[in-house]
């Protein structure tokens, strides 16, 4: 199948390309950029006039809820959401039920995802058995089964000796360890940032020190073990500063932030909006400003959706009782664009945070449109406005803090391995 995407504005952050150029695809790969190779006959032509042609997005955190939580979402529903959001590769956290701690589970997940022939799914294996934080998983076996890194997801790992051993073992094989820094004692029962809003609303709070103390532990042990450490969902100004210093000192650490934290703060909780019950908690405006500055100076490498669909029943509860999480795959592109626009960034620089950069963290040859690369492409209309309406979302999770808000930027075509897996017309 030969595809010719013509007249689009081709943006490829990794290759520093932003120009009016055509893209030629054959056999699932990028064949040429610019002029058609001799003898190229298109089976299909996509007219991208007025549209941006970019690498498919790479999302570092998308929970598709299988196995175990099919009542919240299914692989089918969430992969449909992924392609509708232009996401062509996603990292899959291990906190399923059972957790991804056995090769068989990982193989089954890979197999199920592959059969859908859509977004590439990259499982993150459990770092410890059942995510209990006590015994190591068979990381090498899990890697053979398809795990690209190892993580505790949101489960605590309080025993620092286990953490040390897990990092040493992962480092032995060159595996990356992905951790979300949160001290479980300081965070106990907390549901909101320990600041003005939690004080006003009387919500049990999580101090910034819950993040920085855990982060100090992780950075210290990463230094000692030489493991490749990826910090997930940084949320505080103090945390960003610690990563900045660690990077300056040459530590092999990378870091991501959730799109929610790039745009929202504790203030958005308002009158107990449970859609803003997220993990980590939304922090202060000052923290948000530091996260944005960290993204710009490269301290934070990537923006992820932190897609965590929850069913309505567990959100229709008083704030603290509601389950943390929000749907996100379909909002990643417009929220990355919005951030870039607010910060006056070149489109390519903004897109890098959700394409080439996360691909690099995952160790994938993805997130770019070099000749020979897999033709994972997101074609979007940067001028299309649309309103976030829960019923119109493909994700089975309908809860998002952005409900009712207007977004700019809409996916028109998503291609995975040179095949159109999603297509939408302009709004009537």
């Amino acid at each position, binding site marked *: 199948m030969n595809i010719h995407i013509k007249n689009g504005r081709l943006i490829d952050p990794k290759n520093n390309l932003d120009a009016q150029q055509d893209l030629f695809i054959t056999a699932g790969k990028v064949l040429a950029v610019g002029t058609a190779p001799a003898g190229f006959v298109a089976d299909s032509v996509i007219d991208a006039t007025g549209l941006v042609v970019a690498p498919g997005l790479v999302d570092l955190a998308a929970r598709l809820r299988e196995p175990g939580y099919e009542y919240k979402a299914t692989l089918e529903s969430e992969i449909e959401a992924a392609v509708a959001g232009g996401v062509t590769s996603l990292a899959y956290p291990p906190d399923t039920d059972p957790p991804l701690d056995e090769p068989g589970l990982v193989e089954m997940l890979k197999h199920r995802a592959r059969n859908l022939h859509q977004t590439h799914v990259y499982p993150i294996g459990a770092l410890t058995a059942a995510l209990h934080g006590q015994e190591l998983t068979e990381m090498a076996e899990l890697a053979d089964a398809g795990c690209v890194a190892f993580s505790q997801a949101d489960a605590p790992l309080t025993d620092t000796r286990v953490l040390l051993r897990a990092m040493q073992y992962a480092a032995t094989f060159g595996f990356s360890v992905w951790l979300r820094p949160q001290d479980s004692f300081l965070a106990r029962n907390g549901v909101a940032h320990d600041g*003005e809003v939690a004080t*006003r609303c009387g919500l049990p709070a999580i101090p910034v020190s819950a993040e920085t103390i855990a982060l100090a532990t992780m950075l210290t042990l990463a230094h000692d073990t030489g493991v490749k450490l990826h910090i997930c969902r940084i949320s505080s100004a103090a945390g960003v500063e610690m990563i900045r210093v660690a990077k300056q000192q040459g530590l092999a650490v990378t870091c991501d932030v959730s799109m929610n934290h790039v745009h929202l703060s504790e203030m958005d909780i308002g009158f107990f909006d449970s859609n803003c019950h997220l993990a980590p908690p939304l922090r202060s405006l000052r923290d948000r400003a530091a996260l944005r500055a960290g993204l710009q100076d490269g301290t934070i490498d990537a923006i992820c959706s932190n897609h965590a669909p929850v069913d309505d029943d567990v959100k229709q509860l008083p704030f603290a009782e509601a389950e943390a999480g929000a749907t996100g795959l379909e909002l990643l592109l417009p929220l990355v664009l919005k951030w870039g626009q607010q910060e006056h960034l070149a489109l390519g620089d903004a897109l890098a945070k959700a394409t080439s950069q996360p691909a690099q963290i995952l160790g994938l040859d993805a997130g770019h449109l070099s000749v020979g690369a897999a033709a994972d492409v997101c074609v979007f209309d940067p001028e299309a406005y649309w309103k976030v309406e829960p019923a119109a979302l493909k994700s089975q999770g309908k809860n998002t803090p952005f409900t009712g808000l207007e977004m700019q930027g809409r996916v028109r075509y998503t291609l995975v391995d040179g095949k159109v897996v999603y297509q939408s017309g302009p709004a009537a």
Partner: protein
Amino acid sequence: MKNPQLNKHGELQHLLTTEGLPVKIVRDILDRAATFLDAADGREISKVPLLHGKSVFNVFFENSTRTRTTFEIAAKRLSADVVNLNIGSSSTSKGETLLDTVDNLCAMHADMFVVRHAQSGAPHFIARHVAPEVHVINAGDGRHAHPTQALLDMFTIRHYKKEFHNLRVAIVGDILHSRVARSQIHALTTLGVPEVRVIAPKTLLPAMVENLGVRVYHDMAQGLKDVDVVLMLRLQNERMQGAALPSAQEYFKYYGLTEEKLAHAQPDAIVMHPGPMNRGIEIDSSVADGPRSVIMSQVTFGIAVRMAVMSMLAGVKV
């Protein structure tokens, strides 16, 4: 953001918190409460037919005999039909969701819900889901708010001190976990009290509490100096677990209100407490029963204030 407790005409639709309540509404509630008290001796009048034919449901997801009783008395003196539901011991333990419970109660044609819940924000949540003609009164939610308690406290302060603009008020005790303290702070600042203080050890103060408009003290002698009103808070026994405090004895020694500590306040300072009191933990009996204690007046005024809130929500003009 739309204020969830006012209707589109700016009238009181629900009473959920004292935060953001227009000062005029606060004053109207206090003025209306005064009309329910006999002018001569400050006792309540027996019964008025203002809420005749209306039904008030006391929906308590957390047990409280005292608060529920005062709401019940207030509703009955307004001639309303009162239904008491202790949900804490029924539906939720059978797995029914809060929303289902509320839907069921709405189907029983309640005009007003008086809600107490252990979770901050639960009354806001309920108010969002009831029919537009149904009113919700927050009778205490988690650590968030207890607006009728704060309003009866304001009534009591006004009764004894007449004005708010010249007062120093200290709130003493477990601010961190107290819905009463939060509602008092908002009510006091709304009414123009120029100096509101909180006195507590650091373990019992929430982050950035000064942003609520209060001055923070950790020492009773300094914090009580020259104050006109002392608002004591109840100390929950469970604070001795979880490393908030070492012992009740030490707490009483440093933060319990005694005659000696009260001597730092103005000679005519009044002492208040939302009850139930822990004598010998946060307050000494000699103070609780002493001449400057107005704790029993608070209880009496509480009924009038709750009558005022209920009749105002029902749209009854007086």
